């Protein structure tokens, strides 16, 4: 187990390295530099600016300088937000994005597990079909459609139920007020709720047919215990390996959600950076996200090994 963990960890390093290299050189072959503008700068000034950002050196030297800085988590200065370094911008946005993403994951797991289990227990009955139809909606309709439509319903039209005003703020962060978080978290979580409930239903249906569940029932255990203690534990296993992709999907989704709802997280910096061609910022965020996803994938794999005694990793 321990050696497996070490091997997986060592395997993750080249992956990260490939990402950094790919990203760096893709940025450098871009036509047009970040300081090209219609107004021509005097040559000395242009030279000084380029020297300040190490852009006057050959590309391979720039690459090693960048790697060297990265090794102590310095992503360099942002090319467009002149007074900030990329690390500052990321540190700025991180708490916001993390709060948003974690809430969405939590909601997705909670609702997905519940709905999936309910659907599996009522397999091929009307409850099952309706849950799965709703899940189909969640999977097919992209978040950049659900976000504006929910905004339209809860923000523009304003819904009231039994005289209760259900309208919600549709933009801004307001220091993480719960009312401001409801819509973004729901939009972010919806597709994941759908995927998780489908996943759980599938594995649950299979587990409920297995021999040990039949044995548990034959022993006369109440249904509640059979489902929660015996079946659910085995049924959540596929979910563990889905966690990595889920996090990746939530990160990608947060690009859209943060842009639409005007939330000052990393995703919005990234989108703006991409539109403004702020290379260092885009590259920094990509590397950051990639590292995050790789680490989470690693953790998910290890967790899987811990949870499932049938998996043997020693060779």
């Amino acid at each position, binding site marked *: 187990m321990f050696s497996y963990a070490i091997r997986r960890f060592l395997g993750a390093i080249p992956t990260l390295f*490939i990402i950094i290299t790919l990203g760096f050189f*893709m940025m450098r072959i871009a036509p047009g530099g970040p300081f090209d503008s219609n107004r021509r700068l005097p040559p000395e000034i242009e030279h000084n600016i380029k020297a300040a950002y190490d852009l006057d050196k050959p590309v391979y030297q720039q690459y090693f300088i960048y790697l060297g800085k990265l090794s102590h988590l310095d992503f360099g200065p942002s090319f467009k937000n002149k007074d900030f370094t990329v690390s500052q911008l990321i540190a700025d946005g991180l708490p916001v994005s993390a709060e948003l993403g974690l809430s969405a994951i939590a909601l997705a797991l909670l609702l997905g597990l519940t709905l999936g289990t309910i659907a599996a227990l009522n397999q091929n009955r009307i409850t099952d079909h309706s849950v799965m139809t709703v899940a189909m909606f969640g999977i097919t309709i*992209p978040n950049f459609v659900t976000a504006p*439509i929910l905004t*339209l319903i809860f923000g523009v039209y304003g819904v009231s139920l039994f005289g209760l005003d259900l309208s919600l703020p549709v933009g801004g962060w307001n220091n993480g007020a719960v009312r401001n978080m409801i819509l973004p978290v729901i939009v972010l979580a919806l597709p994941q709720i759908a995927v998780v409930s489908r996943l759980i239903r599938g594995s649950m249906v299979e587990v409920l047919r297995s021999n040990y569940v039949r044995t548990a029932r034959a022993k006369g255990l109440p249904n509640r215990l059979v489902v929660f203690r015996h079946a659910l534990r085995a049924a959540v296993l596929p979910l563990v390996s889905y966690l990595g992709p889920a996090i990746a999907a939530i990160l990608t989704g947060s690009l859209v959600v943060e842009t639409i709802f005007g939330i000052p997280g990393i995703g919005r910096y990234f989108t703006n950076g991409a*539109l403004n061609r702020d290379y260092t910022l885009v590259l920094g965020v*990509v590397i950051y996200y990639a590292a995050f*996803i790789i680490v989470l*994938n690693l953790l998910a794999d290890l967790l899987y090994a811990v949870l499932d005694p049938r998996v043997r990793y020693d060779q």
Partner: protein
Amino acid sequence: MIATGASIQNAEVMMRAQVVQGRSLWVDARNRLLRNRAAVASMVLLGIIALMALFVPLFWPYAYNAVDYDHISCAPDWWPEESVMCRAGGLHIFGTDDLGRDLFVRILYGARISLAVGLAATLVSLFIGVTYGAISGYIGGRLDEFMMRFVDILYSLPFIFFVIILMVVFQQNFFLLFVAIGAVEWLTMARIVRGQTLSLKQKEFIEAARAAGVGTFGIIRKHIVPNVVGPVIVYVTLTIPTVILSESFLSFLGLGIREPLTSWGVLIKDGADQMESASWTLVFPAAIMAITLFCFNFIGDGLRDALDPKDR
């Protein structure tokens, strides 16, 4: 690709030949598919959308980039909201956008681009994925291990970010959009094809071909690839909506298709920007796109059930 097309034809020829004696697997599959009402309805609906996208702009009275200064952000005549600024009238059945362009014909143009990107990028991923998977699976051994390890590494990359970098670097090159998205989507295809190939290469007919002196690539091309068509078709129908989504996602962020051309992502983005005053500019593109994605998913599910009945 040509091999795949030919093999479908072969399968059809076989189908016809065997109808007399008994039902072949393909006939069975087709019957199962045709009995799936959701899948059939989806195919019809999708066909209608595609045909309309192809032919309606040819004779529609408004061009996709023609500006009508008298009807800026006008609701269609039948729009239920009372408080709209103006009514477009005429054949503006979906109203007009903020530049006075006919929304209906723009949605159809968006459909052309979205569907074209979907198909082209899927073909790219199909080509790479099938070639890669078949070679890896058939040759096996060290090479297989190396090639699949490579896929594993790529799997763990947040690839949409790389597409974004590509689009940033190359300034939204239209052609590159196909290739970039296609190059992202081939991984699962490669895994599926490899898995199928591994079991296929144990079969007698492959051994017979080898004994008859057919070369490695001959076997892959003539015997392996035609036999993985089933699962591949299923996955293709599920890849197309994913690709359409990716393209719209990029366009929504302003990194995909550029004006005056349009795609569903661009239209939804424009609609979202002005939904407070002109909600129809959001509702129609979003609805059409959602319907299309649904259709593809239902067809994919239907095909899977039809081709792989044990899974039901």
